[in-house]
């Protein structure tokens, strides 16, 4: 393997707390009722194409994408649609969802449910991207951007590298690590599929050294099989936000994505581990995205676990299976502690972007007293994008949106390193998000003129 690399500027070292890294993936029982939200990706929610009383099978399309940035939704269970109604999802808003009462586990016939590894990629580039689109695959690291859009390279651009985001730099989360350890061959075939889809000769798997077992396993498989030539394992220093798309590209290739541009500008296409595995299943097994690995964890959780969960399963069932809700819960977080979103309810449906459910008690998540900015500069040192969080937050607080734009607020990746490191506990990122939102509106309305 190559010597380990990292991105050059900023970053922090949160406590890793990978409590569930030794826990094998447990296939979670199929729920009695699945509540499948139609909006599971960044962009427009899908449109329901089933109605009350319809019988559905596992893998059947139940919601179609609306617009370019949108993804299809498939049934994760078999049974009868009881209603198409609204449900409160992890965002705390009521969103349209399809409610299905589960009966048995009947799959569509053309889905290959066996465990056989299929290495030969018979589909063409276009067919792969079509399959990825039809099977509703989105970025499963949490951003849920439709993957087919990512894989469709603009005509005037060329992909040189596929970069697999196996950094899993978020503390607590272990779902990608477990997937790599338990399904390394399937994952690597997935990488080959992505390479074919974007016509890239090389793939780099960027993986933090705290997952050295998985890195070595992959490296051995690649070295032992010429089929996987062109794929390279790149160990990375354990540092947050190593898995940020721009930081990952910088660490793996030394290239910098220009401000305001997409990764393809540097000839890179970045895909997450879980998405790569989903692409394998979709392309080689014709299986739509209907389940994912979810890490259920927290210091006070009795049995931190990794579950393979059908979408629409209630988060509460997962928490129960991990030992139940501990006392003094103050926060439930959808995702990891650095970028995840806190939820207002303990019972929400698992969807494509649910990488983890993190439970925190009052001891860990006590709101801290906010003090004066000391102008210590720690936030500047922590910012991986070379911004000045103290300045941005002040400008945003005072509604100075011309200044925030001039200070490159739109470059912020919202990793939260600044706030993590702030000795005065200033909610820097809250102000910056607000400023980014407003500045973005101003820029968009100006561009429309």
């Amino acid at each position: 393997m190559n010597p380990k690399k990292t991105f050059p500027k900023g970053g922090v070292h949160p406590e890793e707390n990978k409590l569930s890294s030794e826990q094998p993936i447990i296939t979670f029982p199929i729920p009695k009722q699945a509540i499948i939200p139609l909006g599971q990706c960044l962009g427009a929610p899908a449109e329901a194409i089933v109605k009350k009383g319809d019988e559905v099978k596992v893998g059947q399309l139940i919601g179609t994408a609306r617009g370019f940035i949108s993804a299809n939704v498939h049934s994760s269970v078999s049974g009868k649609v009881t209603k198409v109604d609204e449900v409160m999802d992890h965002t705390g808003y009521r969103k349209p969802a399809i409610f299905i009462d589960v009966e048995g586990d009947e799959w569509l016939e053309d889905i290959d449910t066996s465990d056989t590894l299929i290495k030969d990629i018979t589909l063409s580039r276009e067919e792969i991207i079509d399959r990825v689109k039809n099977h509703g695959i989105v970025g499963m690291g949490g951003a849920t951007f439709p993957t087919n859009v990512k894989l469709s390279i603009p005509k005037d651009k060329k992909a040189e590298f596929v970069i697999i985001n196996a950094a899993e730099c978020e503390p607590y989360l272990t779902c990608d690590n477990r997937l790599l350890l338990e399904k390394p061959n399937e994952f690597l075939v997935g990488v080959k599929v992505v390479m074919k889809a974007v016509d890239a000769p090389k793939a780099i798997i960027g993986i933090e050294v705290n997952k050295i077992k998985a890195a070595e396993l992959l490296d051995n498989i690649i070295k032992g099989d010429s089929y996987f030539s062109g794929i390279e394992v790149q160990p990375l220093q354990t540092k947050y936000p190593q898995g940020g798309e721009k930081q990952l590209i910088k660490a793996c290739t030394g290239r910098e994505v220009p401000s305001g541009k997409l990764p393809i500008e540097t000839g890179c296409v970045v895909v997450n581990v879980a998405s790569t595995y989903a692409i394998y299943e979709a392309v080689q097994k014709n299986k739509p995205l209907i389940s994912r690995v979810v890490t259920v964890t927290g210091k006070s959780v009795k049995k931190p676990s990794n579950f393979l969960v059908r979408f629409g399963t209630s988060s509460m069932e997962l928490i129960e299976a991990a030992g139940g809700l501990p006392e003094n819960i103050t926060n439930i977080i959808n995702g990891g502690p650095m970028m995840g979103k806190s939820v207002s309810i303990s019972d929400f449906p698992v969807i494509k972007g649910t990488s983890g459910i993190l439970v925190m008690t009052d001891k860990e998540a006590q709101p801290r007293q906010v003090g004066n900015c000391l102008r210590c500069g720690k936030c500047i040192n922590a910012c991986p994008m070379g911004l000045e969080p103290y300045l941005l937050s002040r400008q945003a607080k005072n509604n100075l949106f011309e200044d925030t734009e001039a200070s490159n607020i739109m470059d912020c990746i919202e990793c939260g390193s600044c706030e993590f490191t702030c000795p005065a506990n200033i909610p820097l990122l809250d102000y910056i998000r607000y400023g980014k939102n407003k500045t973005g509106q101003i820029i968009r309305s100006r561009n429309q003129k």
Partner: protein
Amino acid sequence: MNNYIISGSPHVHGNESTKKIMYSVIIAMMPAFLFSIYYFGFDAVRVTLISVAACVLVEWLIQKYLVKGQNTISDGSAIVTGMLLAFNLPSNIPAWMIIVGAIVAIGIGKMSFGGLGNNPFNPALVGRVFMLISFPVAMTTWPTPQPIFGEALTDAVTGPTLLGHIKEGLAQGIAANELTAEEIINPLIYSGSLGEIGSIAIIIGGIFLIIRKVIDWQTPVIIIATVAIISTVCWLIDPVQFVNPMIHIFGGGLMLGAFFMATDMATSPMTMSGKIIFAIGIGALTIIIRLWGAYPEGMSFAILIMNAFVPLINKVCKPKRFGNTVKK
């Protein structure tokens, strides 16, 4: 319904806090404090206690009756200011003068701008310079060190500082090499303020702060290096007019200023490039004042002058933005 906390990410914190930073600084000042007790005995304790108590009290009163905001006295920053102010004073200074200095340092230097983090000038230095101008005699009459152990080397009750002695000697036309021939840096012969006397103790505290990552190593090193380079060049050109550079490095308040006052977070630039400019400026101004100015010591003025440039430096010295490389 459950009452979960809804907050924006990140949901964990690095456990750095203002308190931790301030108490680290206080711990780092302890070696120098013990040194000053060794040299000046009970007087060092008296000056430090009065200064700290006055600073804390003034901040508390202003918080309570004028600002009426959240009380922040427990963050320890007033203690730091109090100790730094004490380190800048002679050990025989009357108590009321210390209290006046504390009122100016905290009241004008810090709280009038909005308290911690908002002050453009180092509060302890504001207090010190105010006292230097208001009470020039008391502020420059230095008691001779009377070590607790062993005997004092001279019978004199007051003595000059090393830099003061040199300045005076040079003014009288005595050659620099004669002035320093025998008596290089013996703190027992020359006096100074509480924090001026033990450069080694200051360095120990400074290294502690650098290891704890409270301060960066660049600022103090560059200040000291700038002073060293300019004074060495001058000394090599004309050893009759200029003294051995070691005296400038270890004499006076250079170490105290470089490690504890130029690194003050609120009054130093935010980025490393800015800090480098800031440090070179302090070093250069310090040695210019010492060599050619009217005062024998220039550290506090140099820091205050450069403090005034900090907003400008912050405006010019931006961190290198990610992805702003010019690329086709």
